Each structure stands twice: as C-alpha cells, then as structure tokens.
C-alpha cells in the first residue's frame, strides 16, 4: 500500500487539479455570458441574426442636428457615415457628448435601427476618440 504521506500528497495534487479545472470552466462560462460586444451601425445592419436580449455597445459619430432633449430622455442618431441608428437614452450625459463627436452607447437593440441606451461612456479629453469609434469610422470611410 502507499504510505500515508504519498496518499495525502496525491489527494492534494488531485484537489488542486480539480479546482483548477473548475475555475477555468467557471471563468470562461461567465465570460461567455457577460461579455459586451462592440458593433458599428454598419455591422449591425449587415448582421443576420440579432439577439435583442443581449447588451451591446455601439459607437460612431453623433449626427449633426439630431440631438433632441426632454426632461427624461435624450434622442440622437449615431452614424458611421454609411448607416445610422436612432438612439433613445435616459441617464447621465457626459460633458463631452456633443454633435459631430465620437460616442459609445451601451444598451439593447429594439430593431436594426433603433437602440435603447442605458449608458453613454464618458470621455475625459476633447480630442480623445474611443479606439473602437476611430476604427469603425476609418473602416467605413476607406471602404
């Protein structure tokens, strides 16, 4: 028979491996469920299947003359100069949110051109463009 010490060590190593496997499984499982994808209006437009229950981020430029306010909400259009999406948002608005500036909104799609946002991401720098927006805009303008 194996000595007590060896057996204990084997059990210990076994436990470590099991917990490792478990941890990896749980981590990736929860990543899968909780990740937020970033899409440009064109990507949404071209997408075949859309999961309307899934939170996404969309980014682009706030179209000129489209911001409309009321007491509770604000409406505007996000464009990547090829496709646009109508956004309805109620919540806090960052100071740097303005027409013809880059914006990232987080929320749910109602249909392919209507987006209910629950967050607009704040940016700290007037020259700063979120990398996603920059890329999305570049991609569309070079096509």
């Amino acid at each position: 028979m194996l000595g007590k010490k060896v057996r204990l060590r084997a059990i210990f190593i076994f436990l470590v491996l099991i917990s490792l496997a478990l941890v990896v499984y749980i981590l990736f499982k929860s990543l899968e469920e909780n990740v937020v994808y970033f899409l440009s209006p064109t990507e949404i437009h071209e997408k075949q299947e859309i999961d309307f229950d899934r939170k996404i981020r969309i980014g682009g430029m706030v179209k000129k003359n489209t911001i409309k306010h009321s007491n509770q909400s604000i409406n505007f259009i996000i464009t990547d100069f090829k496709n646009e999406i109508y956004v309805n948002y109620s919540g806090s608005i960052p100071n740097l949110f303005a027409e013809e500036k880059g914006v990232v909104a987080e929320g749910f799609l109602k249909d392919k051109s209507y987006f209910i946002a629950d967050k607009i991401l704040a940016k700290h720098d007037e020259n700063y463009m979120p990398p996603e927006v920059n890329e999305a805009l570049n991609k569309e303008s070079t096509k």
Partner: protein
Amino acid sequence: MIFGELGYYSLIFSILFSILLFFFIYQDYFIKDNKVSTKVYSFCFLQFFTIIISFFSLVFSFLLSDFSIVAVFENSHSSKPIFYKFSGTWGNHEGSLLLWVMVLSSFLFLFLLNSKKNPKKYRLLTIFFQNILVVGFLIFIIKTSNPFEKLIPIPKEGLGLNPILQDPALAIHPPILYVGYVGSSIIFSSALASMIVNFVSKIWAQSIKIWVLISWIFLTLGIMLGSIWAYYELGWGGFWFWDPVENVSLMPWFALTALLHSIIILARRNVFQSWTIILSIITFTLSMNGTFLVRSGILNSIHTFANDPERGIFILTFLIFLSLLSLVIFFAYQPQKKEDFFFNFTSKEMGIAINNWFMIFFLSAVLIGTIYPILLEIINGKKISVGPPYYNFILAPFLIPFLIIMTISTKVDWIRSNINQKKKELLFLLIFSFLFILIINYYSQKISIINLLIFFSSLFLIFGLSKDFFDFFKNKKKINLSQTVSHFGFGLLILSIAICGIFSKETDVNLKVGESIKLDNYELIFNDLSMKEDKNFKKIIGTFNLVDINGKTFHFSPELRIYNQPPIVTSEANIQTNFFKDKYIVMNNISGSDYYNIRFQEKPFMVWIWISGFLIGLGGFLSIALKRNSID
C-alpha cells in the same frame, strides 16, 4: 534653463554609477568576509543621489514652468496652482517613470542599510537584481521617454495638465501607488537572491516581511485614493468600474495579499517555501505588467494615457527577460530542504492555504477579464468589453465561503487547534448573523439569495472579530491587533459595498434653470446658475434645493468647471456625507441647449467603504508599529 541640463546629466551619471555598481558587487562577492565593501555602499548611494537630483530637477522645471522642456510644455501651464505644477511632475509618462526609478533606487538603498543582520552574499545578490531593474528602467527612460527632452523654439506657454488630474487625491495617488508597486521589486530581488544562496527560510521570511507590509500598505492606500478620486471626480458616483487600468493595480494587490499571508507561515513554520517565492515573483511581474499595459496603449481604457508602441515593446522585452531569469533561477535553485507539507485541517496554516487559493482565484478572474478582450481582438478582430456583470457574477459567490473561512481561521491556532472549544462561539455568531439578515430581508424583500448570503458572511466576520475586540478591551485578552483590524476592515468593506450597491438609488433628469421635478422621496428644484472666475478655470455653479417628504431642505451646489488650458469642461459633484448615506448631485451641460443633465444619487454606507479601506491599511501599519515596540 539649468535644471534641464542638471537633470539630464545626473540621469546619465546614474546609469554610469549603476553599471560600476555591478562591477563592485562582483568584486566584493568573492571576498570572504561578512562585510559589504564601502565601494558598494558608496555607489548605491551615488546612484540614489543622482536619481534624486534628476527627479528634483524635473520638479523644479515644473515649478518654474520651464517650457523649454517638452514634458513641462505638454503638461503644465504658468497659471496652474503651484501644488498642481508640483504634482504635474508625475502626471505624465516621462515624469512618472522617473518617479518609478527613484522609488526603485531608494528601495535598493534602504535595503542595503536595513539588512545588516543578513548574510553578505544574499545582500549583494539582492542589490544585484535590484540594480538590474534600476538599469533597465534608466535605459528605458533615456531611450524612449527622456523627461528632459528639449523644445526649440521655447514656447511662451504650456499646454496645461488635464483638469481631471488637477485634484488633491490624484496628485498624491501616483507616488503612493508606486511605492506599493515598486516596493514589490525588492521582494522580487531578494527572493531570487535567497534562492541562489539557499537562504529561503524562516529568517529570510522574517527579514522580508517588513517590505511586504510596506508595499502592501501603500498599494492598499493607493488603490483606495484612486477610487475616492473616481467617486467624486468622474461624476458617475461609482468608485470602481472594473476598468483595465484599475484592474492592473488590483491584481498585484491580490498577489501581495496572498504573499503577506504565506510569508507569515514561512516565518513561523518554515513551510510554503517555493510557493512564497512564486508569489514574490508573480507580484512584481504583475506590477510591471501593469506599467506595460498602461503605458503601451494596449488597454482600451476610459483613462487616457500617453502611449507609444516602442515603449510597450521595450517594457515587454524587459518583462519577458525578467520572467525567464526568475524561472531559470527558480528551477535551478530549488530549495533543498524537505518541508513538512501537510498540516492539520483546523489550523491557521490551513486557513492561510485557503486564503491563498481564493486570492489566486480572484487574481485569475480579474486577469482573464482584463486580457481576454485584448486576446480576442488579436485573434478574430472582435471587439468586446468585459464589465461589472462579469466580475459580480464571478466574484460574488466566492466571497461567501471566503468570508466564512476567514472568520473561522482567525479563531483557530497554529499547528492544531481544538475546534470544539470554539464551536459554541461560532454557533452563536452564526445564529446572530442569521437573525440579522432575517431582519434585513423582512424590511426589503427584493434582495437576491447571493446578496443575502454576502450580508450574512460579512456580518459573520464582523461579529466574530467584534468579539475579539471586546475580549481585548474588556477582558485584556491578548489578540493579534493588526490582523483583527485588517480583517474587520475587510468584512466591513464587503458589507458596505454590498449595502451601497443594493440600496443605491439614482435618477437622471434634464432640467432648465427654474424648473423642478418630483423624484421618489424628494422634490428637486433648480434655483439658479452663477458664474465665478478662479485661477485657471471658470466655474458655473448650479444652486439646487432638495426637499424631502418631511419638508426638510438640503442645499446643493454642483459645479461645472471650464478650464482655460486645456479647454476642457469638468463636473464637480456636490456630495453631502453622513454615516448613513451620501447624497450626490452632479450636473453636466448638454451642448447646444438650455438643459442641464442632473444626476441625483443616494448612496447608503458610502463613507464606510473608505473607512474600511483605511482600516485594512491601518492593520498593516499596526503590524509594523507593534512589532517594533515588542522587539526594541
């Protein structure tokens, strides 16, 4: 001006001295006596001294607004308050790296002065490894981010510091955080050295524990200052966003906390040798990794930092070199002594082993959440973000057993303890905490099971430790005060975060001056707007009255600040704090309209989050202070 030259050349000299230091360490290493030669001492001092000179030259260049230096031009402005000129020194990439090297070098020097009781070869090797770090970063600074780079012609005025960085908490945040980060460097160096000279032992652990404590305290405080700043300055009312830049400071904290625990076991029982070494290496690697990720611009973060691929590649190369070096040393110099691997189920050692398991789990969760989006983008170009839902989902359930085991561990003894004596106490605590959450549940039904269990387990810890405090003050029983304070702080932290997270209320409305709006329990009236000039910004002050159901009125005056250089608008929240809750109002302008976007928040127990953070750090401080007294 003179300071630019002085700073640059003393930086060059510091490289020279550091390289000579390698030579003297080598020379001294083979001399068989027990004294480190005076040459090593003097060159350590010279290195330290020249870096200090260089750093303060940069400080003076900032204070004197010397715009012939690029770093000053880009990050300062003559109209800036003197305090922010000072803190502007490290509010940019170049200056912050100089600060980083200064801390590295001062730890090297302090280690040399404070390690006289240890073997000579170990001391020399520790300095050798630490010196590799210093030289690596000095070359990095000179090659890619020279803080004293000249600008011709000399501009009349600087571009100014990003206004959101012009804040007292954020002014002192980087130095404190860096002491925490860089403090782990000396642990790393001494871990490598102690492996080579086969000094991984109780004595090593006892001598290195103080460094672990120091960097842990500073890292804790640094992270906390960062979140306090985020809370009142970013205007969202949150204090932690699971932003990559925050995560990279949290990861070394987990590793360091695990190390802090495992080093205690090593110091007492001489077990966990290899594991402690691994943690020492991981901690510093993560600290450097943090710098790499932040500085290379790989992180897509809400915080913007100057970035440059060349810098990223340099740090990455250096990081890989260090990791390989430590791996080679680790496998080549495995500790020879057989250690007693197993311990009793009901012992403090077991508690600490479990603590380490959880710390590594939390660390992995945050690590994967942070790098997964980067990897995914490289692999298939998909852009994703991993936010709070992931972290809440993954961390919250694990906090429950973590807190419960923590409570039990603080009650058991080393080696083997008879849990039966404690059974009564634990059972009583269990029932007491359970009654408490029944009450909570009765008053607000909508709490999920997970949250209830978090309440339960954190209360379990808090009550358990309260009893220890009671024993200490009332019955004069001996307790480990520092441990009790820190763990109590941790329990309180989780409890207040949970309460604040669950019972917070927020409303966003768009209002014009003179309008008012009915909220749940309040009426919010937008009375007035006024304008005021300040030193380097204009402020627009909104005056609000908040009337609660009993007719009691609270006055709020959040501000918008329009900075002249750079021209940025920031919001200053107006927060009214008491021990029960924070009332938080922040206002934003909506460009092109008369509306202001007002966010009103009630955040119960907010202040307790900060208090518990300080308690956690205080525990570490007590550990140093009380040790000193008991030995001297």
